[in-house]
């Protein structure tokens, strides 16, 4: 890898688990020097080469972003620079959302997918499960996925004009919590084509995960984002 002088990665710090992402990024050893910015204003965002939108409450994060004058700049940012959304961040990156709050909620878009909020049910259905992730360091070692009131990918909307959608990880259907809200897809809920088993996907330089790599001690997902999505844009 060529030596790159500086990369500035922002973490949207409106509400939620932004400090956990900061700790994970600080642990990465990279050949390039990384600057981490907690983004609270449009000026903070303007310094960034890439952005992580953390877990939290998507309605709260969107409202605070609007009140801070960040919604417009964020939508512009998503059009040109790499963004990774975890959980609530994944909801904000989606093209459309099911189970939004009454009156709808604001999204940033960027990934051609529809996600359902709290897709597996309430907190009682929150779970941990091992995942196989394509393209990650030490692929034989599963990544522990922490799913907390997690969103679920319910549809992909590929289009020739958009970058292709690449599935980075699917959860084994047999590991999913059985809830009343889970209606079999095509009469068979173990169907490998079921979009609801997708827990990580990439489109262009954007990354979406419905789980929380920042709640583990495993920095491989953060390394993956920086290596696969961020550094190539600076080369």
């Amino acid at each position, binding site marked *: 890898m060529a030596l790159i002088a500086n990369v500035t990665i922002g973490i949207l710090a409106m*509400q939620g688990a932004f400090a956990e992402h900061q700790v994970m990024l600080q642990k990465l050893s990279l050949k390039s020097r990384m600057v981490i910015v907690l983004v609270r204003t449009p000026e903070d965002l303007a310094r960034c080469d890439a952005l992580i939108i953390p877990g939290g409450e998507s309605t*709260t994060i969107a409202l605070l972003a609007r009140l801070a004058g960040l919604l417009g700049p964020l939508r512009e940012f998503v059009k040109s620079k790499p963004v990774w959304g975890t959980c609530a961040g994944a909801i904000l990156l989606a093209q459309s959302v099911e189970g939004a709050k009454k009156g709808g909620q604001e999204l940033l878009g960027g990934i051609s997918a529809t996600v359902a909020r709290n897709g597996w049910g309430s*907190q009682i259905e929150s779970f941990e499960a091992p995942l196989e992730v394509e393209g990650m360091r030490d692929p034989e070692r599963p990544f522990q996925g922490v799913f907390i009131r997690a969103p679920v990918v319910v549809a992909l909307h590929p289009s020739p004009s958009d970058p292709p959608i690449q599935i980075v990880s699917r959860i084994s259907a047999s590991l999913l919590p059985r809830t009343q809200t889970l209606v079999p897809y095509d009469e068979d809920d173990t169907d490998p084509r079921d979009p609801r088993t997708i827990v990580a996907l990439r489109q262009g330089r954007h990354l979406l995960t419905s789980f929380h790599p920042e709640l583990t001690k495993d920095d491989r997902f953060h390394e993956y984002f920086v290596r696969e999505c961020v550094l190539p844009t600076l080369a």
Partner: protein
Amino acid sequence: MSTPNSQPSGIATPPIQGAGNSAGTPMLAPTRSTQTKDGANSSLGTFGVKSGLAQMLKGGVIMDVVNAEQARIAEEAGACAVMALERVPADIRATGGVARMSDPKMIKEIVDAVTIPVMAKVRIGHFVEAQILQAIGIDYIDESEVLTPADDEHHINKHAFKVPFVCGARNLGEALRRISEGAAFIRTKGEAGTGNVVEAVRHQRSVMSEIRKASVMNEEELYAYAKDIQAPFHLLKETARLKRLPVVNFAAGGLATPADAALMMQLGCDGVFVGSGIFHSGDPAKRARAIVQAVTHYNNPKLLAEISEDLGEAMVGLTITDGMKGGRLATRGW
């Protein structure tokens, strides 16, 4: 910025199943596992997902609401969760009598009205109220001193539940005792229903100063200190190493203004609960939104000044004395 708890599991002692069941507590399976063909496991209700939800609430405001309409106002104002209860603490003080868990029907109406997590309170030690709330799919339970205690000696064995618990604490020892019982989230007790932040400040300052003290102690001193503050040694040691509580810590009890919220954040809290302070004020929607903004921008006095402008009447505050109506709630809990 405080160091986050980046350790999802293995902090608290493992769930006790079937043992020590002298009180006749029906032991609910704390985790349910499913397996794939090749033997991989997934599990529900781990300590990681319990404390993890609290981590997702950080930097947010959890608001007391008494009906679906207030819950919607709170959600629109940017609350990261709501606490469903029949009477806010100020009204519990005013009306007196025994305060209990709310009607499940009213809680379900609030759950149906909003998309954010819904919490509800149970009396200290009342594990059946907790079983009922778990059965209706509540997201978090507050084992709260604001309600009248049901047990004057024991708290709920919170490891026995899939639903996570938040508990109040006045000092480090109390916080670690609650975590040892399975609480995945701690808040200051403050003095609920007073609109007076002084007790919340006292409790947060105690916790922080005791953590600072412990963080420079050697092992022998930690053993003695654990005995002194009546805290489990392994949790005290972990706290000393992290230089913070091993779970998320919010402020609660008496917060009424955006400045109160920012004060508690600057004192090291991860987020805030606001009870009577919102819906007992002149313009609840506006005040709620201002407090939400204040928690995000707690270190920006210029912005705090703008946020604090023109919010209408704050709730009427009370001076905290032993003789005040409803008495001191913070002394409940053991």
